[in-house]
Protein backbone atom coordinates (compact mmCIF):
# COMPACT_ATOMS: atom_id res chain seq x y z
CA UNK A 1 0.00 0.00 0.00
CA UNK A 2 1.57 3.28 -1.05
CA UNK A 3 1.14 6.64 0.63
CA UNK A 4 -1.88 8.67 -0.52
CA UNK A 5 -1.46 12.31 -1.55
CA UNK A 6 -1.92 14.28 1.68
CA UNK A 7 -2.81 17.60 0.05
CA UNK A 8 -6.28 18.78 -0.92
CA UNK A 9 -6.51 17.48 -4.49
CA UNK A 10 -9.70 18.78 -6.09
CA UNK A 11 -11.58 16.67 -8.65
CA UNK A 12 -13.88 17.96 -11.40
CA UNK A 13 -14.25 18.55 -15.11
CA UNK A 14 -12.25 20.76 -17.47
CA UNK A 15 -15.18 23.23 -17.37
CA UNK A 16 -14.91 23.37 -13.56
CA UNK A 17 -11.19 24.06 -13.93
CA UNK A 18 -11.71 26.92 -16.39
CA UNK A 19 -13.91 28.73 -13.85
CA UNK A 20 -10.81 29.22 -11.65
CA UNK A 21 -8.80 30.98 -14.38
CA UNK A 22 -8.00 34.64 -13.71
CA UNK A 23 -9.33 34.81 -10.16
CA UNK A 24 -6.60 35.76 -7.66
CA UNK A 25 -6.62 33.64 -4.50
CA UNK A 26 -7.04 34.95 -1.00
CA UNK A 27 -3.55 35.74 0.34
CA UNK A 28 -1.88 32.92 2.26
CA UNK A 29 0.73 33.85 4.87
CA UNK A 30 3.45 31.44 5.98
CA UNK A 31 2.90 30.02 9.46
CA UNK A 32 6.51 30.70 10.39
CA UNK A 33 9.14 33.26 9.38
CA UNK A 34 12.13 32.50 7.17
CA UNK A 35 14.54 30.71 9.51
CA UNK A 36 18.23 29.79 9.56
CA UNK A 37 17.27 26.18 10.27
CA UNK A 38 15.24 25.82 7.05
CA UNK A 39 17.78 27.84 5.03
CA UNK A 40 20.56 25.48 6.10
CA UNK A 41 18.50 22.30 5.76
CA UNK A 42 17.87 23.22 2.12
CA UNK A 43 21.47 24.29 1.51
CA UNK A 44 22.58 20.91 2.91
CA UNK A 45 20.11 19.13 0.63
CA UNK A 46 21.66 20.66 -2.47
CA UNK A 47 25.14 20.77 -0.84
CA UNK A 48 25.55 24.51 -1.37
CA UNK A 49 28.25 26.02 0.85
CA UNK A 50 27.48 29.64 -0.11
CA UNK A 51 28.32 31.74 3.01
CA UNK A 52 25.14 33.74 2.34
CA UNK A 53 23.36 30.68 3.82
CA UNK A 54 25.89 29.67 6.48
CA UNK A 55 27.96 32.63 7.72
CA UNK A 56 25.82 35.06 9.77
CA UNK A 57 28.44 37.83 9.72
CA UNK A 58 29.03 37.67 5.97
CA UNK A 59 25.31 37.43 5.30
CA UNK A 60 24.43 40.36 7.59
CA UNK A 61 27.02 42.61 5.96
CA UNK A 62 26.12 41.57 2.42
CA UNK A 63 22.35 41.03 2.50
CA UNK A 64 21.06 42.09 5.93
CA UNK A 65 20.79 38.52 7.22
CA UNK A 66 21.10 34.88 6.21
CA UNK A 67 19.56 34.58 2.75
CA UNK A 68 16.69 32.31 1.76
CA UNK A 69 18.05 30.15 -1.09
CA UNK A 70 16.14 31.23 -4.23
CA UNK A 71 15.49 27.59 -5.05
CA UNK A 72 13.46 27.16 -1.86
CA UNK A 73 10.95 29.90 -2.78
CA UNK A 74 7.88 27.66 -3.14
CA UNK A 75 8.80 25.83 0.06
CA UNK A 76 8.04 28.79 2.34
CA UNK A 77 4.34 28.55 1.48
CA UNK A 78 4.18 24.76 1.27
CA UNK A 79 2.21 23.55 4.31
CA UNK A 80 3.37 20.69 6.48
CA UNK A 81 1.58 17.45 5.54
CA UNK A 82 -0.31 17.34 8.85
CA UNK A 83 -1.93 20.15 10.80
CA UNK A 84 -3.64 20.12 14.23
CA UNK A 85 -7.09 20.58 12.66
CA UNK A 86 -6.69 17.13 11.11
CA UNK A 87 -7.94 18.49 7.76
CA UNK A 88 -5.86 18.10 4.60
CA UNK A 89 -3.53 21.13 4.42
CA UNK A 90 -4.32 23.82 1.83
CA UNK A 91 -1.52 23.68 -0.70
CA UNK A 92 -0.57 25.51 -3.89
CA UNK A 93 -3.49 26.65 -6.07
CA UNK A 94 -2.42 24.40 -8.96
CA UNK A 95 -3.45 21.24 -7.12
CA UNK A 96 -6.72 22.83 -5.95
CA UNK A 97 -7.87 23.15 -9.59
CA UNK A 98 -10.69 20.62 -10.10
CA UNK A 99 -9.73 18.13 -12.83
CA UNK A 100 -10.00 14.37 -13.38
CA UNK A 101 -6.26 13.54 -13.08
CA UNK A 102 -5.23 11.39 -10.13
CA UNK A 103 -1.68 12.71 -9.82
CA UNK A 104 0.60 15.51 -11.02
CA UNK A 105 4.17 16.35 -11.98
CA UNK A 106 5.82 19.69 -12.53
CA UNK A 107 6.63 20.73 -16.11
CA UNK A 108 8.19 24.22 -16.02
CA UNK A 109 8.96 27.10 -13.68
CA UNK A 110 10.09 30.69 -14.02
CA UNK A 111 10.92 32.74 -10.93
CA UNK A 112 12.10 36.31 -10.50
CA UNK A 113 13.59 37.77 -7.35
CA UNK A 114 13.41 41.59 -7.23
CA UNK A 115 14.73 41.63 -3.64
CA UNK A 116 16.66 39.16 -1.47
CA UNK A 117 14.54 37.26 1.07
CA UNK A 118 16.31 37.09 4.44
CA UNK A 119 16.01 35.40 7.82
CA UNK A 120 13.07 36.81 9.77
CA UNK A 121 10.95 37.74 6.74
CA UNK A 122 7.35 36.52 6.83
CA UNK A 123 6.10 35.79 3.33
CA UNK A 124 2.58 36.03 1.93
CA UNK A 125 1.56 34.64 -1.45
CA UNK A 126 -1.28 35.53 -3.79
CA UNK A 127 -1.82 32.85 -6.43
CA UNK A 128 -3.68 32.92 -9.72
CA UNK A 129 -4.45 30.31 -12.35
CA UNK A 130 -3.32 31.81 -15.66
CA UNK A 131 -4.49 29.03 -17.96
CA UNK A 132 -5.60 25.40 -18.10
CA UNK A 133 -4.86 23.58 -21.36
CA UNK A 134 -7.31 21.34 -23.18
CA UNK A 135 -6.73 17.63 -22.61
CA UNK A 136 -3.30 16.50 -23.82
CA UNK A 137 -1.83 13.03 -24.32
CA UNK A 138 1.78 12.72 -23.17
CA UNK A 139 4.08 9.75 -22.56
CA UNK A 140 3.04 9.90 -18.88
CA UNK A 141 -0.68 9.82 -19.51
CA UNK A 142 -3.68 12.00 -20.34
CA UNK A 143 -4.19 15.30 -18.54
CA UNK A 144 -4.11 19.08 -18.49
CA UNK A 145 -1.32 21.62 -18.12
CA UNK A 146 -2.06 24.22 -15.42
CA UNK A 147 -0.14 27.50 -15.55
CA UNK A 148 -0.14 29.55 -12.36
CA UNK A 149 1.38 32.84 -11.25
CA UNK A 150 2.35 33.47 -7.63
CA UNK A 151 3.33 36.86 -6.19
CA UNK A 152 5.29 36.78 -2.93
CA UNK A 153 5.38 39.79 -0.61
CA UNK A 154 7.14 40.23 2.72
CA UNK A 155 5.85 41.84 5.93
CA UNK A 156 6.32 45.42 4.67
CA UNK A 157 4.32 44.70 1.49
CA UNK A 158 7.33 44.75 -0.87
CA UNK A 159 7.20 42.18 -3.69
CA UNK A 160 10.21 39.91 -3.19
CA UNK A 161 9.49 37.26 -5.82
CA UNK A 162 7.17 36.12 -8.58
CA UNK A 163 6.78 32.51 -9.62
CA UNK A 164 5.23 31.28 -12.86
CA UNK A 165 4.73 27.53 -12.85
CA UNK A 166 3.34 24.90 -15.20
CA UNK A 167 2.11 21.65 -13.64
CA UNK A 168 0.81 18.59 -15.51
CA UNK A 169 -2.25 17.09 -13.80
CA UNK A 170 -2.83 13.64 -15.25
CA UNK A 171 -3.94 10.05 -14.91
CA UNK A 172 -1.02 7.69 -15.54
CA UNK A 173 -1.09 5.65 -18.74
CA UNK A 174 -2.22 2.09 -18.05
CA UNK A 175 -4.17 2.87 -14.87
CA UNK A 176 -7.95 2.61 -14.86
Amino acid at each position, binding site marked *: *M*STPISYQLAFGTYEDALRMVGVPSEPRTAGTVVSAARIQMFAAT*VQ*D*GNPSYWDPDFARQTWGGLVAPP*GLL*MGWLTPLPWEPSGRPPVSAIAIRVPLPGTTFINAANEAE*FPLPIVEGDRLTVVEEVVSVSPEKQTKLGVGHFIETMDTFTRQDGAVVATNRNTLFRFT*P*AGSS
Partner: protein
Amino acid sequence: MISWDEISVPRELPEVIDEITYQRVVMNSGSTWDYFPGHFDPAYAESQGHPAIFVNTMHLAGFADRIATDWAGPSSRVVRRKMRLTGSIYAGDTMVGRGRVVAKHCDTTVDPPRRLLDLQIEVVNQRGELCCPVELTLQLPG
Protein backbone atom coordinates in the same frame (compact mmCIF):
# COMPACT_ATOMS: atom_id res chain seq x y z
CA MET B 1 34.75 36.66 -7.15
CA ILE B 2 34.02 37.11 -10.85
CA SER B 3 34.44 40.68 -12.13
CA TRP B 4 31.55 41.80 -14.33
CA ASP B 5 33.79 44.37 -16.03
CA GLU B 6 36.41 41.81 -16.99
CA ILE B 7 34.35 38.83 -18.03
CA SER B 8 34.03 38.05 -21.73
CA VAL B 9 31.21 36.02 -23.22
CA PRO B 10 30.60 33.26 -24.07
CA ARG B 11 32.35 31.53 -21.20
CA GLU B 12 32.11 27.95 -19.94
CA LEU B 13 31.61 27.22 -16.25
CA PRO B 14 33.24 24.23 -14.53
CA GLU B 15 31.14 21.06 -14.71
CA VAL B 16 29.47 20.15 -11.41
CA ILE B 17 28.71 16.52 -10.54
CA ASP B 18 26.37 15.51 -7.74
CA GLU B 19 25.38 11.97 -6.77
CA ILE B 20 21.78 11.80 -5.63
CA THR B 21 21.47 9.12 -2.97
CA TYR B 22 18.23 8.05 -1.28
CA GLN B 23 19.28 10.21 1.66
CA ARG B 24 19.44 13.29 -0.55
CA VAL B 25 15.96 12.65 -1.97
CA VAL B 26 14.56 12.21 1.53
CA MET B 27 16.32 15.41 2.65
CA ASN B 28 14.59 17.09 -0.30
CA SER B 29 11.12 16.44 1.16
CA GLY B 30 12.36 17.34 4.64
CA SER B 31 13.79 20.70 3.61
CA THR B 32 11.12 21.83 1.14
CA TRP B 33 8.14 20.39 3.07
CA ASP B 34 7.03 18.92 -0.27
CA TYR B 35 5.62 15.54 0.75
CA PHE B 36 4.22 14.56 -2.63
CA PRO B 37 4.66 10.77 -2.25
CA GLY B 38 6.68 10.42 -5.48
CA HIS B 39 9.47 12.17 -3.56
CA PHE B 40 9.67 9.71 -0.65
CA ASP B 41 7.62 6.54 -1.27
CA PRO B 42 9.16 4.02 -3.71
CA ALA B 43 5.88 2.07 -3.99
CA TYR B 44 3.99 5.23 -5.00
CA ALA B 45 6.71 6.25 -7.47
CA GLU B 46 6.64 2.81 -9.08
CA SER B 47 2.83 2.87 -9.28
CA GLN B 48 3.17 6.04 -11.39
CA GLY B 49 5.65 4.42 -13.77
CA HIS B 50 8.84 5.80 -12.18
CA PRO B 51 11.83 3.54 -11.42
CA ALA B 52 12.47 5.19 -8.01
CA ILE B 53 11.67 8.28 -5.93
CA PHE B 54 12.77 11.53 -7.51
CA VAL B 55 13.81 15.07 -6.48
CA ASN B 56 11.42 17.99 -6.87
CA THR B 57 11.65 21.24 -8.83
CA MET B 58 13.12 23.11 -5.87
CA HIS B 59 16.04 20.68 -5.68
CA LEU B 60 16.88 21.18 -9.35
CA ALA B 61 16.52 24.94 -8.93
CA GLY B 62 18.86 24.84 -5.94
CA PHE B 63 21.41 22.84 -7.95
CA ALA B 64 21.31 25.39 -10.80
CA ASP B 65 21.63 28.29 -8.33
CA ARG B 66 24.58 26.56 -6.65
CA ILE B 67 26.38 26.13 -9.99
CA ALA B 68 25.89 29.84 -10.76
CA THR B 69 26.80 31.39 -7.40
CA ASP B 70 29.66 28.97 -6.63
CA TRP B 71 31.24 30.20 -9.82
CA ALA B 72 30.39 33.92 -9.55
CA GLY B 73 30.95 34.23 -5.80
CA PRO B 74 28.72 34.76 -2.74
CA SER B 75 28.10 38.45 -3.42
CA SER B 76 26.29 37.52 -6.62
CA ARG B 77 22.55 36.87 -6.57
CA VAL B 78 20.08 34.92 -8.71
CA VAL B 79 17.46 37.40 -9.95
CA ARG B 80 15.72 35.19 -12.51
CA ARG B 81 15.60 31.48 -13.29
CA LYS B 82 13.56 29.74 -15.96
CA MET B 83 13.59 25.97 -16.14
CA ARG B 84 11.84 23.12 -17.92
CA LEU B 85 11.46 19.69 -16.34
CA THR B 86 12.09 17.36 -19.26
CA GLY B 87 13.17 14.32 -17.23
CA SER B 88 13.34 13.27 -13.61
CA ILE B 89 16.41 12.82 -11.40
CA TYR B 90 15.90 9.60 -9.42
CA ALA B 91 17.54 8.25 -6.28
CA GLY B 92 20.72 6.57 -7.49
CA ASP B 93 21.21 8.98 -10.39
CA THR B 94 24.11 11.35 -10.87
CA MET B 95 23.28 14.95 -11.77
CA VAL B 96 25.73 16.72 -14.02
CA GLY B 97 25.45 20.47 -14.41
CA ARG B 98 27.06 22.25 -17.37
CA GLY B 99 26.76 26.00 -17.46
CA ARG B 100 27.94 28.84 -19.65
CA VAL B 101 27.63 32.58 -19.70
CA VAL B 102 25.82 33.65 -22.84
CA ALA B 103 25.26 37.39 -22.33
CA LYS B 104 26.34 40.33 -20.22
CA HIS B 105 24.22 43.42 -19.85
CA CYS B 106 23.51 46.38 -17.62
CA ASP B 107 19.95 47.15 -16.56
CA THR B 108 19.77 50.94 -16.45
CA THR B 109 16.01 51.09 -15.82
CA VAL B 110 16.76 50.92 -12.09
CA ASP B 111 18.95 53.11 -9.90
CA PRO B 112 21.67 52.07 -9.29
CA PRO B 113 21.95 50.11 -12.56
CA ARG B 114 22.13 46.32 -12.20
CA ARG B 115 25.11 44.45 -13.67
CA LEU B 116 23.75 41.20 -15.02
CA LEU B 117 24.99 37.96 -16.58
CA ASP B 118 22.76 35.52 -18.44
CA LEU B 119 23.67 31.86 -18.03
CA GLN B 120 22.44 28.69 -19.66
CA ILE B 121 22.74 25.56 -17.55
CA GLU B 122 21.93 22.04 -18.63
CA VAL B 123 21.28 19.41 -15.97
CA VAL B 124 21.76 15.92 -17.41
CA ASN B 125 21.80 12.49 -15.76
CA GLN B 126 24.58 9.85 -15.87
CA ARG B 127 23.28 8.66 -19.26
CA GLY B 128 23.60 12.14 -20.71
CA GLU B 129 19.82 12.61 -20.92
CA LEU B 130 18.78 16.25 -20.60
CA CYS B 131 16.55 16.48 -17.53
CA CYS B 132 16.40 20.20 -16.95
CA PRO B 133 17.45 23.07 -19.22
CA VAL B 134 17.81 26.31 -17.24
CA GLU B 135 18.14 29.99 -18.15
CA LEU B 136 19.43 31.97 -15.20
CA THR B 137 20.28 35.64 -14.66
CA LEU B 138 22.82 36.63 -12.03
CA GLN B 139 23.26 40.10 -10.58
CA LEU B 140 26.84 40.95 -9.71
CA PRO B 141 27.86 43.54 -7.13
CA GLY B 142 28.84 47.08 -8.09
